[in-house]
């Protein structure tokens, strides 16, 4: 399945775009998407940390991703 990934802050700079498309196997878990992204964009591994969000909620490594989900990369937040 093809998933659109939203990117914010430094993740947008790393991807060179506010969103990218990635090809992911059906029902993949968040951890697999992270591995895939880190392979394609090694600079992600240099961040202090980063999370994935699925449908506006922080995801766990074993959270499943389905084709209708809104997925986003959340680098370290710094609001306020």
């Amino acid at each position, binding site marked *: 399945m093809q998933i659109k990934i939203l990117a*914010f802050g*430094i993740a947008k700079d790393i991807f060179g775009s506010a969103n990218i498309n990635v090809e992911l196997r059906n029902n993949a878990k968040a951890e697999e998407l992270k591995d895939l992204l880190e392979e394609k964009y090694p600079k992600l591994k240099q961040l202090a940390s980063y999370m994935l*969000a699925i449908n506006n909620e922080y995801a766990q490594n074993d959270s499943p991703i389905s084709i209708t989900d809104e997925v*986003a990369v959340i680098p370290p*937040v710094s609001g306020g």
Partner: protein
Amino acid sequence: MDTQIEISSEPLKTQACIDWVMSPQCGGIDIFIGTVRNATNGKNVVKLEFEAYEPMAIKEMEKIAEQAFKKWQVQKILVHHRTGILEIGDIPVIIAVASAHRDAAFDACRYIINTLKQTVPIWKKEIFEDGEVWVAAHP
């Protein structure tokens, strides 16, 4: 639970925030106003840029307000956060909490700003004369 949570690219309005949070049941209001400093770690800041993942940021701010209502006897919570380019002295964030007794307002207000900085998907870029950096991105 009476909350007003907003993200906006327009300048935040302090007086309107205070007016909203005031009520005849409340004896104390604590307000935190963040402002853009002219320096960070001794380096001159020219301006800041704030970016938000808006729907998720609103959701996370609502969660923080809910937690505050559970932890303390507070009556009204307002959280306004600005996005876009901000100059020195501009206001990125206003948090206002009203309660019958002041301790609850102080505790809740401080909890909200501390937690917001940890969990709400908003990002700050510091723009210097000679470059720019996303705050907290790297170790």
